[in-house]
């Protein structure tokens, strides 16, 4: 199937702003799914609220557009009910780690087989540019007109600490790498987190004088480096991208199935 066969063309052009990185995430995700040769019927996309979460309306999979921060909770329900389906949960930075912060760490701790994509544009775009837990110290936002004094989360460190079985980071500039990583994340059995650094030229870009979408993508190229590169040794401030964790640990639905078997053996 071609990439276009996986989208709901009737809703295009999409509602994202010109140059919004979320469209590139959609683009790479479709390519990952196409390369895996998956049918539309074996994928469920569950999203919450925000610009990023509108992605579920554009893909022609089974889709659930749910409530703010609770996409992972709904996804957990779907997965436990139909463990054979592949569940993809795209979330914004605020949706995943502020409103949905607890759902996020506990889904990771349980190691339920979901693919969580954190589309990190470092701001709440849809509601008008408020700072998020990933905006970072010193950034400007509508709600931080004299600059933000909150420190940010490191999504990768947080996910590893919470016990996720697959943890990766990439950017929309590195769209080819993103498609490769998303492919591996989808087929990995267990809770997979992929942080995708993306740009919001409309709010983050304007508030922080970061230029247009092109400038913001050039910046992503400059501030990131592959894991373990020489450049990182010289400049420790560079953000590493690639796959940080990929491990096999007991998956929640399989463990739950064994509990059911044990309980049934007890009864009979």
């Amino acid at each position, binding site marked *: 199937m071609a*990439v276009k066969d996986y989208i709901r063309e009737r809703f295009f052009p999409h509602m994202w702003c010109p140059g919004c990185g979320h469209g590139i995430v959609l683009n790479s995700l479709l390519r990952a799914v196409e390369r895996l040769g998956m049918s539309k019927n074996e994928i469920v996309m569950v999203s919450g609220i925000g610009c990023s979460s509108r992605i579920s309306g554009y893909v022609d999979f089974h889709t659930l557009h749910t409530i703010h921060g609770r996409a992972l909770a709904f996804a957990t329900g779907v997965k436990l009910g139909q463990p054979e389906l592949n569940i993809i949960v795209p979330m914004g930075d605020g949706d995943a780690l502020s409103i949905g912060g607890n759902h996020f760490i506990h889904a990771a701790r349980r190691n339920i087989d979901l693919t969580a994509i954190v589309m990190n544009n470092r701001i709440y775009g849809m509601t008008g540019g408020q700072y998020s837990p990933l905006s970072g110290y010193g950034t400007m936002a509508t709600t931080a007109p004299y600059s933000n004094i909150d420190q940010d989360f490191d999504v990768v460190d947080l996910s590893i600490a919470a016990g996720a079985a697959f943890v990766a980071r990439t950017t929309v500039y590195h*769209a080819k790498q993103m498609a490769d990583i998303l492919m591996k994340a989808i087929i990995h059995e267990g809770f997979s987190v992929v942080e995708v650094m993306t740009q919001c030229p409309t709010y983050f870009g304007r508030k922080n004088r970061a230029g247009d979408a*092109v400038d913001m993508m050039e910046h992503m190229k400059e501030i990131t480096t592959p894991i373990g590169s020489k450049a990182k040794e010289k400049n420790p401030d560079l953000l590493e991208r690639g796959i940080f964790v990929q491990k096999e640990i007991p998956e929640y639905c399989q463990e739950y199935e064994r509990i059911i078997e044990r309980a049934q053996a007890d009864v009979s």
Partner: protein
Amino acid sequence: MAKPKLKQHVINREWCKGCGICAHFCPKDVLEMDEKDKAVVKRPEDCICCKLCEIRCPDLALDVETE
């Protein structure tokens, strides 16, 4: 694998929002933005079919068709 040969670039002008990502990151300077801020093909003969424009287009508005 043989080098892919370009058939044509298909640009959906209805979907293109003129962000300029395709034109800026094209390694061979094949694309440009026109007066209406839509991507257009200016130098198709230089295209090496790397498809970087296609995979980075946030609007899914660009296809590089190869033979």
